[in-house]
């Protein structure tokens, strides 16, 4: 059986509301499994919007979004939410963590919503806590003093590493990172990316990395400029 692409977009169109201009029009985009992709583009060009479409949080007005071979735009809302929790891990820009949960609870959060990732995590580590600790150790976040601190007291870089462990737990096929490094200084940025790459390689995950920091683009296997592949009229912007 030939491996289906991680992501396949066909003639995708999206506008936030009927009376607003179209934000995205992408004729064709394919991302093979295991690839590390950098998605660049100006602010407001629709990068986050594209990620929301890939995650099945928003639906395209037209066209097809295939993730791991599944046409998620044809799934029901509940199935899409389920699909997302099973197969996609997220890291966002800032304040990624649920303030009232501990570090470990934040890391294992996806396992509350996805049975599949829960099982994979338990298979990998023996139990959820051990697996979470293993990931945190890889990210150099497993110190006793850090683990038991309220997440709101962690530094931005530490928060990003906890969020990364959360995205990675249960080895989802796709990791989506929306400007995860924009709040980090350049040294931390490099270190963070190294860790992220290593983890994705270990699990064979596909990485979609959004940023407007072009310097980072060279570190990735492939580089997509959203402004170039997006055919939507941007004159209103």
């Amino acid at each position, binding site marked *: 059986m030939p491996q289906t692409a991680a992501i396949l977009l066909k003639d995708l169109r999206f506008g936030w509301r009927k009376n607003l201009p179209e934000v995205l029009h992408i004729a064709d985009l394919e991302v093979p499994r295991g690839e590390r992709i950098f998605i660049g583009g100006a602010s407001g060009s629709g990068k986050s919007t594209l990620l*929301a479409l890939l995650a099945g949080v928003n639906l395209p007005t037209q066209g097809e979004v295939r993730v791991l071979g599944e046409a998620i735009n044809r799934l029901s809302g509940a199935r899409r*939410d389920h699909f997302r*929790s099973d197969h996609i891990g997220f890291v*966002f820009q800032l*304040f990624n963590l649920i303030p*009232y949960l501990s570090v470990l609870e934040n890391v294992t959060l996806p396992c*509350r919503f996805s049975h599949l990732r829960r099982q994979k995590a338990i298979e990998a580590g023996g139990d959820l806590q051990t697996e979470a600790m293993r990931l945190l150790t890889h990210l150099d976040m497993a110190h006793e003093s850090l683990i038991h601190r309220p997440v709101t007291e962690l530094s931005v870089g530490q928060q990003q590493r906890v969020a990364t462990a959360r995205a990675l737990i249960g080895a989802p096929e796709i990791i989506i990172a929306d400007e995860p490094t924009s709040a980090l200084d350049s040294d931390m940025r490099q270190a963070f990316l190294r860790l992220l790459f290593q983890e994705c390689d270990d699990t064979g995950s596909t990485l979609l990395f959004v940023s407007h920091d072009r310097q980072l683009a060279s570190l990735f296997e492939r580089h997509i400029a959203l402004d170039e592949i997006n055919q939507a009229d941007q004159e209103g912007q």
Partner: protein
Amino acid sequence: MAILSLALKSLFNRRYTAGLILISIALSVSLLLAVERLRVESRNSFAHTISGTDLVVGARSGSINLLLYSIFRIGDATNNISWKSYKKFAEHDLVKWTIPISLGDSHKGYRVMGTNQDYFRYYKYGNKNSLAFNQGQPFEQVYHAVLGQEVARELGYQVGEKIIIAHGAGKTSFTMHDDKPFEVVGILEPTGTPVDRTVHVPLEGIEAIHKDWIGGRQVAGLKISAEEALEKNLTPKAITAFLVGLKSKIATFRVQREINDYRKEPLLAILPGVALQQLWDMMGVAENALLVVTVLVVFVGLIGMLTVMLAGLNERRREMAILRSVGARPAHILLLVTGESLLLSLIGIALGLLLLYSGLLLGQPVIESRYGLHLPIGIPSMREWIILGLVGTSSLIIGLIPGYRAYRYSLSDGMSMRI
């Protein structure tokens, strides 16, 4: 369940505000339950102010009026009953016992009631309870008195105390029967009825202190000392009212009709149970007003919860977006936020019950001894469960408001981070 444990943790994270909401809900719920319990018990005890008495008889007037002055010692009789009429019915074939009542005098604001020893034998209140003595015994001589519990407590009287009876009712009566003091020989146990506020003396005592009085005035020059009065005939010429116990309840209406149709004197016989019910219904408005106020207090508590939940919602949009990104459905978000309100109110209700029962445990002996009102500490009644159910349901409905808003936010925001 995963979402409810999140809700608990989120509440714990905001434990100071959540604690304040809990306190207000717990207080209002326990207040509501306490008012309900007091209402039911006071209605109960009111309906049992007098029991075992089949008829109350007085001069013809309104039945509520008769009940008020004969049982509650409120207001005055318009007329007396002649001793002859009383005797006639006291010796009636169907009548088992009677208790004569003679009112009109007072002691420091407490009504003085002339009666005979049958009062201690036959008078019943509550669940057919007889009067019991805390100290001493029933009166035996003309100048003896038996005090209700409140009279003794408020005035600090003991057995052996000499008391002076004032002519007429009211605290400010200036004419005293100070030539004929009465000796306290007994103090009753609390009953929670007007008996507690009554000074009981023999009918002969009432007669004796009025021997030198004619038409409500002490007749100058006609001084009769306490000892001299004892020599005279002390059978009263009239009494205020009397209570009747029948040999068989079946005869109640027959005897009632006979008394009401009595030719020689206009009399009125009433069934105390019926009159008590009428009286309570008249007071029902106040009772309901109290209940409405406490229901509103609970409502205010829930509105407080709504305010806090809604106010906190906007700053939680990021949290919602994160939850959505890890696979939470909008329905989960609804459940999370509504669940928080529901948890708050359920814990609040539980705390309210705890508060109620600790209050009851502490207050029950005091209330019982001071007001004679027995508040049971049993499990909540059906009505109380229904009240709790209604509080729970309203909090669920109120909790759905922020829940629905969060649901709308999570639909429109998706994973985008607002704020």
